[in-house]
C-alpha cells in the first residue's frame, strides 16, 4: 500500500453520500453513457496492447532458442524473429497510443457535456437550492469534480484492463512452456497475499481514524486561517497560533504513528513481488529445474522475461486505487447534483391575464418542520403598492420570494393574473414579475449587455434611455469605454452605481409586477438620492410588493401587511394601522424615536 499525496490530502467528507460505492458505480455508468462507444473502442485497442506487450519478451526467448541451437537455421533465421519483436513493440505502442488518445479526447467531450448538462439542470432547480449552498460548491462540482473524473475515464479503466489481461496472457504462455515451473514461480503470490491481508486487517477502523484526524486538522487550518485577521485585532495571535501548532503537532504525531506500521508491512509485502524478487525466484527455480534435467536451460528464459508480469497488477492496482476512489467520489457528487429535483414546469402553460396578484392560504417552511409562513392570504390590486413589514424572522422576505418562484409553497397558491405561478411557464412568468433585491451582482460583461440582459436585441438608444431614467447614464459615459466597458475590468462601480444599473435592467425588462426590497434605496449612503430617484421612476404604475425595513419609506403605500410569526396579523394603510394601535404602531413609535437618538451622546 502506497500512501500517496492524494490519499493524504485532507479531503472534505462527501456530503451527498457518494462514499457508498454501490450507487456511485451505477451513477458513474449512467454518466459515462455519452462516450460509451468510444470507451469500448478504446478497450479493444487496450486489449491488443495488453497482449502485444508480451510479444517482444516472447521473441527474445525464441531468439535465444535460435541463436543457441548450434547450426540450426542459418544466418537468416534470427532476423524474422527480431523483426517480429520490433513489430510487436510498434503494435504495442500504436494500440496503447490509440486507446489513450481515444479516452483523452472522449474525456474532453464528456467534461463539456457534463458541465453543460449540469448548467442546464441548475437553471431548473428551485432558486432556494442556491441559497442553501454557496457558489463555491457549484464551482467545485462543475469544475473540480468533473476534472477529477479524468483519471477514472482516461486512465484507470484502461490500466485495470491491461493489469488483468497481460498477466493472464503471461500465465497461459508460461503454463504452455512448463506448467510445473509456472507453479513454482507463483509461490511469492500467496506470501504477498498473506502479508497484504495482515496489513488490511482493521482497514476500515484505520481509515476511520485517518479521516477523523484529517477532519480535525482541516478544521484547525480553517479556523486558524479564517479567523487570524480577527484574532490579530484582539491581540491574541500567539494564543490562536499555539492552538493551531498543537493541532498540527497532534496530526503529525498521529500520521507518523498511523503510517509507520503500514509502511513496514507494505515494504515487506511488496518485497515479495517486486521485480528483483520475481527475477530471483524465476532464475533460481529455473536453474534448479534445469540442473535436474526437468527442462532445457533455454526454457528458463520465458520465466525470467515474463514472470515479472505475473505480479505487476498488484502494484498497479495499489497505486491507482486511491485516485480511483477519489474519482468515484467526484462522479457521485456530479450524479447527486444532476439528481436534484428540478422545479416542475407545466405541461400546458397558462397565460396570465392582467396584473393582479393573490396569495391564497400560503404555507411554507424551508426544512419541512419549522413553518415560516402559515396560511397567508393577501391580494395585490393592479397598479397598487403593498408593503410587507414585521420583525426579522416574521416571514416577509420569504413571502415576497414566493412570487418570483424562488420557492414553491407547501400548500396554498400564488396566483398571478388569474393563473397559479406553477401553471405559468417560467419564461412567461418572468415577463410579468420582476424584482430588485438588496444584493446586486453584475455580470462580467459590458455595461450595455448587463442592462440588456432581458432584451438581448435592445438597441443602444433604448439602453441609454433606461440608463438615463435610472440616473446612471452620466456615470457610464465617464467609463473608459463607455457602455462597452466591462464590469470588473475597466468598469468598477460602487454598490449604489451597480444598483442603478440593475434598476435600468429592470426598466428595460418592463415587467408589470415588481418585487422590491426597500433596503435597496439605502444600500449606499453616498448615492441614496440617485437610487431613490431611479426607484421612483421604476415603480411608477406597476403592481408593487415591497419588503420594508424603514417604515417612513412606505407610509404612502396603498396597503401595509404586518407579518408576525408567519401570519398576517394586521393590514391597512399607515393611518389605519396607527389608529389600530397594534404591533405596527409600536414599531412606528420605535422607528421615530430611534431615528433621532444619538448613541454617541455622553
Amino acid at each position: 500500500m502506497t500512501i500517496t499525496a492524494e490519499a493524504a490530502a485532507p479531503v472534505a467528507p462527501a456530503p451527498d453520500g457518494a462514499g457508498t460505492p454501490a450507487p456511485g458505480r451505477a451513477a458513474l455508468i449512467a454518466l459515462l453513457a455519452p462516450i460509451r462507444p468510444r470507451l469500448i473502442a478504446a478497450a479493444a485497442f487496450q486489449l491488443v496492447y495488453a497482449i502485444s506487450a508480451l510479444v517482444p519478451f516472447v521473441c527474445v526467448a525464441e531468439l535465444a532458442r535460435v541463436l543457441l541451437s548450434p547450426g540450426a537455421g542459418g544466418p537468416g533465421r534470427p532476423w524474422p524473429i527480431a523483426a517480429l519483436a520490433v513489430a510487436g513493440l510498434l503494435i504495442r505502442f500504436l494500440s496503447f497510443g490509440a486507446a489513450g488518445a481515444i479516452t483523452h479526447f472522449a474525456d474532453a467531450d464528456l467534461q463539456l457535456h457534463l458541465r453543460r448538462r449540469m448548467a442546464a439542470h441548475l437553471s431548473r432547480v428551485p432558486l432556494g437550492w442556491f441559497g442553501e449552498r454557496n457558489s463555491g460548491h457549484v464551482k467545485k462540482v462543475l469544475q473540480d469534480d468533473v476534472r477529477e473524473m479524468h483519471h477514472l475515464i482516461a486512465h484507470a479503466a484502461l490500466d485495470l484492463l491491461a493489469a488483468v489481461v497481460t498477466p493472464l496472457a503471461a500465465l497461459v504462455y508460461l503454463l504452455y512452456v512448463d506448467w510445473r515451473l509456472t507453479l513454482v514461480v507463483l509461490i511469492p503470490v500467496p506470501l504477498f497475499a498473506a502479508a497484504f491481508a495482515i496489513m488490511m486487517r482493521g482497514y476500515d477502523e484505520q481509515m476511520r481514524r485517518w479521516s477523523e484526524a484529517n477532519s480535525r486538522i482541516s478544521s484547525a487550518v480553517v479556523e486558524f486561517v479564517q479567523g487570524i485577521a480577527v484574532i490579530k485585532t484582539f491581540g491574541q495571535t500567539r494564543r490562536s497560533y499555539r492552538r493551531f501548532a498543537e493541532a498540527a503537532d497532534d496530526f503529525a504525531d498521529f500520521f507518523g504513528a498511523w503510517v509507520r506500521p503500514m509502511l513496514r508491512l507494505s515494504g515487506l509485502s511488496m518485497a515479495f513481488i517486486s521485480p528483483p524478487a520475481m527475477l530471483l525466484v524465476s532464475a533460481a527455480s529455473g536453474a534448479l529445474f534445469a540442473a535436474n534435467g526437468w527442462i532445457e536451460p533455454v526454457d528458463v528464459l520465458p520465466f525470467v522475461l515474463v514472470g515479472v508480469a505475473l505480479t505487476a497488477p498488484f502494484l498497479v492496482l495499489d497505486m491507482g486505487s486511491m485516485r480511483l476512489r477519489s474519482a468515484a467520489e467526484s462522479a457521485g457528487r456530479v450524479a447527486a447534483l444532476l439528481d436534484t429535483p428540478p422545479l416542475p414546469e407545466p405541461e400546458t402553460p397558462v397565460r396570465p391575464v392582467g396584473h393582479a396578484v393573490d396569495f391564497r392560504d400560503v404555507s411554507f417552511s424551508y426544512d419541512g418542520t419549522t413553518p415560516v409562513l402559515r396560511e397567508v392570504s393577501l391580494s395585490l390590486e393592479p397598479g397598487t403598492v403593498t408593503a410587507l413589514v414585521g420583525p426579522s424572522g416574521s416571514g416577509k422576505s420569504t413571502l415576497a420570494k414566493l412570487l418570483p418562484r424562488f420557492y414553491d409553497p407547501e400548500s396554498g397558491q400564488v396566483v398571478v393574473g388569474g393563473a397559479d405561478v406553477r401553471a405559468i411557464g417560467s419564461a412567461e412568468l418572468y415577463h410579468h414579475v420582476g424584482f430588485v433585491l438588496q444584493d446586486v451582482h453584475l455580470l462580467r460583461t459590458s455595461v450595455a449587455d448587463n442592462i440588456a440582459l432581458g432584451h438581448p436585441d435592445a438597441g443602444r438608444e433604448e439602453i441609454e434611455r433606461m440608463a438615463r431614467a435610472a440616473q446612471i447614464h452620466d456615470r457610464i459615459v465617464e467609463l473608459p469605454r463607455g457602455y462597452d466597458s466591462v464590469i470588473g475590468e475597466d468598469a468598477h462601480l460602487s454598490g449604489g452605481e451597480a444598483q442603478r444599473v440593475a434598476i435600468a435592467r429592470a426598466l428595460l425588462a418592463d415587467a408589470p409586477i415588481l418585487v422590491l426590497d426597500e433596503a435597496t434605496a439605502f444600500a449606499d449612503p453616498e448615492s441614496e438620492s440617485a437610487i431613490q430617484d431611479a426607484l421612483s421612476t421604476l415603480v411608477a404604475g406597476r403592481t408593487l410588493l415591497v419588503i420594508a425595513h424603514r417604515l417612513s419609506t412606505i407610509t404612502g403605500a396603498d396597503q401595509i401587511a404586518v407579518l408576525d410569526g408567519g401570519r398576517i396579523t394586521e393590514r391597512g394603510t399607515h393611518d389605519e394601522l396607527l389608529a389600530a394601535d397594534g404591533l405596527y404602531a409600536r414599531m412606528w413609535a420605535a422607528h421615530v424615536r430611534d431615528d433621532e437618538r444619538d448613541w454617541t451622546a455622553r
Partner: protein
Amino acid sequence: MIGELGAVLGPEHGARLRRSLLAMAVYGVLQGLSFAMLVPVLRALLSGESVGPWLAAFAAVVVATAVASYVQAQYGYAVGLAALRTLYHRLGDHVAGLPVGWFSADRVGRLGQLVGKGVMDVMSVPAHLLQVVVSAVAAPATVLVCMFVFDWRLGLAALLTAPFLWLAFRWTQSLVQRSDTAMDDAGAEGADRVVEFARQQPSLRAFGRTADGYDLLDDALVRQRSTLRRLLRTTLPGLGTVALTVQLAFTAILIAGCSLALGGAVDVPELVGVLVLAVRFTEPLLAAADVGGELRMARGSLRRIKAVLDTPPLPATGTARAGEPSIELDGVGFAYAERPVLRDVSLTVAPRTVTALVGPSGSGKTTLTRLIARFWDAGSGVVRVSGNDVRDYAPEELMAQLSIVFQDVYLFEGTLEDNIRIGRPEATDEEVREAGRLARVDEIAERLPGGWQARVGEAGATLSGGERQRVSIARAMLKDAPIVLLDEATAALDPENESALIDALATLARDRTLLVIAHRLTTIAAADQIVMLEGGAVVERGTHQELLDLDGRYAAFWTERTRARGWRLTQPA
C-alpha cells in the same frame, strides 16, 4: 526542486534530507545491479557452467535491494513527516506575523488550500515521489555501466539512445508546461463563469437567461474543451515520442546484438543475458513519467509556500507604553497596489471625543481606520495612537488600546459565549454575560435554542447582520479598550434590531475615544468633529455648524442626505 525543498524545510533538516537522498540513490543503484546480475546468471545457466555461486550473489543483491528499499522508504517518510511538521510551524509562525491587511478574502481562501493540501503535496515529494525520480536516473545508469562491462559494443548501442531520450523528455516537458498554463487560464475563466452563473441565478432567470441562453458560461466551457483538445494534440505526440524513444534502446541492442551474434563476434549466452537486461532497462524511466503530474503539482505548492514565507512580516519590536487615549495622523499617505488611497492626511482625535468620518465610497475612510489599527503601515507620515507611533508598540499593546467594530464580523464555529469571550479570554462567565447583556446579546440568547451555549455557525449563518454586529460590540465591551474604531451599519435594520443596536452602541461609546465612519445623520451632526474625505484627502473639517456655515462640500452632502432621508417610495394617494 530539491534545492527549493531544502530551502523551505530550513537548514536543520539538511542532513536528514541528504541522508534520505543517499539511501534513494543506493536503492536505485542496487535495483540496476539486481537487473544486471541476470546476465552472468543466465550466461552460466545457458553455457552449462555452474550457476550456484552466481545465484547466491544474485540473491545477495536482491536481498540488499529489498533492505535498501525498506530503509529508503523509512528515511523518506521520516523526511516527509519532518516536512509536515516544519511546514505547519513555519507557515503558522510566519502568517501570524503578517499585517492584517494582507488577509484579503481571496488570500485567505488560497492560504487555507496551501496549509491543507499544499503541505501534503510537498510532503509527498520526499516521502514518495523523489524516490521514483532518483531510481529513474540511478537504475538505468547502473544498467548501462554494467552493459559496458559485459560488452562495450552493446553498451555503446544503448548509450547512443540516451541523448534522444533526454531530448524527448525535455521537449515533452516544455510542451506540457506550456499547455498547463493554458489549461489553468481556461480553467480559471470557466470557474469564474460558473461562480457567476450560480450567484446570478435569480437575475439570469428573471431575465429569461437559462443555461441555453447564457452564452458567457457556455463560451467559457467550450473554450475549456478546445484548450484541452489543443493540449492533447500537442502533448500526446510528445508523450508518444518519449515512449518510442524508450523502446529505441531495446531495438538498438536487439539489432546490434543479432548482427554481432551472426558474425560470431559475441558470446551468445551473454548476448541473451544482455537482451533480457535490455527489456528491464527502461522500466524505471516509464515509472518516472507516470508521476510527472504529481511532481508538477507538488512543485507548484512548494513555490506558493515559498512565496508566502517570503512575504515580509510587520516589524514588531516596539516597547512603547500607551498614554492618554488619542489618535493622531500626521501627513499620512498610503497606496494599495500602486493606487494612492490616502494623500497627506492629518487629523487629531482628542481623548474621549467623537470624530465622524464622512465622504463618498472609495474616499479612503476604511483605509484610514485600518492604518490606525496597523492592518498595514502607512507609506509616508506617522500614525500615532495614545501618544506613540503605532510602529513603536508591540502588537498586543497596540491592540489593547483599540476596539474595532467593523461591518464584516467574523463569528467562529462555537457558542455565542465563546464568540464574545474572544474579546478577553481570561474573563469570567459573569463578565462575558454582562458584556453580552450590555450589548443586548441577551435578547438573542433568549431567542436561540441553547441560549448562551447556542452554536452560531461558521459564517454566523444563524444570526442576522444586526445581531452579528451586536456580538461584535459585546466583544469590544469585554475587551474594554479606551479607543473605539467603528463602522456604523448601513444595512437596513428592522426597528427592534435598530433599537437594540443603538442601546449597545451607546453603552460602548460612553467615556471612550471614538472614531466613527458615520452614516446616521444624528451621529454626524452630534460629533465633536467631522472630517470629510474625498479622493483620499481631507477636504473639510469642523463641527456640524461650522461646516454648514462654510457652505462647501459638507453642506452639499448634508442637504443631499437630508433629502434622501425624507424619501417616500410613493406618496399617499
